[in-house]
């Protein structure tokens, strides 16, 4: 069953316009139409100048985040009719600079992400560059970070976070989640290298548990949880001087032949 739904879409090209405008479009949608489908339909049939960013159309690439009826959502993961409203407002994600229309600039977020060294850091540097075996993990060691590794870097959480809205330098939930994901990994011993950034004025202590990040995350990552666990990890290593968890050692498995180009 098709239904006509009105879309009010934010249009703004900061390089040539001074103020944004709202354009109204009408689109026929059915049960399965996502907001992204509808926007693409608008782009094809009504307004080719509409700028959108997307890639996978299945909540994997994390590029189609936008404000839909005032809340951070993935356009490809939101069906129009599930919103239950006759008029749908579509705006670019808040707290990111606008490039054009619905496309926002993530470069600041990604440079913050690089600053927390989002990769495994170990002392056995030689083994890391010329591996002779593998690092084995127990299931519970895997579970300690698996949920946080599901992040698709869509940046919805960092857009929803109230701290981000007033503190431009705050690392933001996406980045702090990433920092915890690696620090909690039993193969990693890099917390001390990340501390100067995450245990700083604009680091994890700026989070005040509004949990807005977790309530918008489309992948069940629960960044509010990883951030509080990160605070706990920092407190127990810095203040209570608890030694870090055991780091898994290399285990060479004779029956596995490793060949790296």
């Amino acid at each position: 069953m098709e239904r006509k739904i009105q879309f009010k879409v934010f249009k703004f090209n900061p390089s040539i316009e001074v103020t944004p405008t709202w354009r109204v479009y009408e689109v026929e949608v059915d049960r399965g139409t996502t907001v992204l489908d509808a926007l693409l339909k608008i782009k094809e049939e009504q307004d080719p100048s509409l700028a959108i960013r997307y890639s996978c159309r299945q909540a994997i690439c994390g590029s189609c985040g936008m404000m839909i009826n005032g809340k951070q959502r993935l356009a490809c993961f939101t069906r129009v009719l599930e919103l239950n409203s006759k008029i749908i407002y579509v705006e670019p994600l808040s707290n990111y600079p606008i490039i054009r229309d619905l496309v926002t600039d993530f470069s600041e977020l990604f440079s913050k992400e690089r600053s927390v060294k989002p990769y495994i850091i170990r002392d056995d540097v030689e083994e890391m560059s010329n591996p002779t075996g593998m690092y084995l993990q127990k299931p519970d060691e895997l579970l300690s970070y698996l949920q946080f590794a599901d992040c698709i870097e869509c940046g919805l959480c960092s857009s929803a976070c109230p701290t981000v809205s007033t503190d431009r330098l705050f690392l933001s939930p996406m980045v702090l989640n990433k920092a915890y994901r690696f620090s909690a990994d039993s193969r990693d011993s890099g917390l001390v290298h990340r501390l100067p950034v995450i245990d700083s004025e604009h680091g994890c202590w700026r989070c005040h548990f509004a949990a807005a990040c977790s309530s918008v995350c489309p992948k069940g990552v629960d960044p509010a949880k990883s951030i509080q666990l990160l605070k706990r990890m920092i407190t127990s290593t810095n203040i209570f001087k608890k030694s870090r968890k055991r780091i898994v050692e290399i285990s060479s498995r004779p029956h596995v032949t490793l060949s790296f180009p």
Partner: protein
Amino acid sequence: MKSRENREGIFGWLKFRGYSIEKILYISQRVSGVGILVFLITHILNVGLIYATTGILWEPPGLIGKAILIILGVIVIFHSLNGIRLTLVEYGFLVGKPIRAVYPYRMTTLSGKQRLAIYLVTTVFVILMYFWTMVAFHLLGW
């Protein structure tokens, strides 16, 4: 009006539609915190000024003074109770263990022990409010 920067500023703190109850509590915690701070500063200045000019350090509060005290009590009780929950949460208690993210997703920060703590805080708040009302009536001499 949106600009290129598109930062929400202080309005980002106050938005709650579409988010969870934790966001509302976050706003209340901030507002009550600012309220207590404003009271403290004006109170110290007020008492200090009166003492400096008249030499009187304490006088029974008048009707406005009593009203302010009663409201302050409500705010302080809320701020402390919610603050205990937040302290626990921020040290990694109550948020639950990492789980597998399997659809339909469940956020343990938005359910489970953390939510129970919210209900507990609300219940204790309501009980304390009952006693506080009696104190207030007594203060007002009703």
